[in-house]
């Protein structure tokens, strides 16, 4: 008889098996997630009597104290990072090439945890143009898209941010002036 694999419930927030959430860094979010998605398990885990433990009470308190401290620290850190992230803005630039041709450069994306190369690929297939990742003058990565697709890119980025819950991030659209080169 082949044995069926055991299914373990993993937490949607910290990916650990739910019983280990209490040792993770994001207990509060984990609890919330479990309550919403698996109320039965939630009751089993958090509303039953104190877990049986062989340790003395003082040791137990010590552990929970240090855990609480770590979780608080992590929470603050996340908050700080989120605030910082919200102040950032994405810059979409239109740069003229020849007569009626433009390229679009998207920079300041790296803070948002996106894979630049993948996004470039996506743009390329979406707009049916060439798109690549290159370094700009400040040696930061940017996506260069051939063709005048600034508005579409802006729309797409807004959608992407909405999915991540970062509505307040601004997207700035800049038009670079044409340099008149005269001989």
């Amino acid at each position, binding site marked *: *008889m082949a044995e069926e694999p*055991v299914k373990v419930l993993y937490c949607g927030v910290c*990916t650990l*098996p739910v*019983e280990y959430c209490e040792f*993770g860094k994001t207990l509060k979010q984990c609890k919330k997630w479990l309550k919403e998605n698996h109320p039965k398990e939630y009751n089993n885990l958090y509303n039953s009597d104190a877990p049986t*433990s062989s*340790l003395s009470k003082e040791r137990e308190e010590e552990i929970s104290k240090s855990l609480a401290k770590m979780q608080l620290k992590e929470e603050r850190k996340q908050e700080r990072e989120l605030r910082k992230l919200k102040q950032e803005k994405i810059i979409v630039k239109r740069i003229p090439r020849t007569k009626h041709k433009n390229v679009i450069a998207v920079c300041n994306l790296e803070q948002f945890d996106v894979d630049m190369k993948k996004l470039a690929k996506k743009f390329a297939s979406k707009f049916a143009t060439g798109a690549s990742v290159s370094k700009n003058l400040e040696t930061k990565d940017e996506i260069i898209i051939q063709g005048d697709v600034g508005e579409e890119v802006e729309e797409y980025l807004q959608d992407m941010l909405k999915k991540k819950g970062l509505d307040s991030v601004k997207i700035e659209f800049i038009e670079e002036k044409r340099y008149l080169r005269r001989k």
Partner: protein
Amino acid sequence: MFKKFTKDDVHTQTNVKSSVQRALRTKLVNQYPKLEESIKILMPKKSTVVLYKCEDKINLYAVNDEVLFYQKFDELIPSLKLIHMYPSCFPRVQVDRGAIKFILSGANIMCPGLTSKGAKLPDEDIAKGTTVAVYAEGKENALAVGKLLMSTDEIKKVNKGMGIELIHYLADGLWNFEIE
């Protein structure tokens, strides 16, 4: 071993030939005889096994986009996901509650954590160098995989110093490693 492990550590990714797959399967069963019955579900004959060669000569083997085991030198070591699926197939030890926190940050397991009241060691002796699944007091699932630095009898006798070298634990680099 996987404390700092990211996507960048993967060098190449290749599909494993079916003949090599067969060898792999027999090797796995040899090492963990209790897996024999489940191996067909785990690695069906027509599945594609993907091999990831990584930094430090670590090889990861994945079936259906899930890393099932890996090897550093010769021995195949199961991943925690695999242990969660088939908990009864691997030798197990248990640590007390106080040790959980440290294990989850990647520490090696000291002997006292294995011999105290909340901990459990199997009655029969497990030889030194065996790969064991580490469980915790009051918890159902394994939280780490380690290698015995002493035989379990020795751990009981000496009760000092490192007992298990930690290889893979919950929320480490391999756990968070996702295949695209």
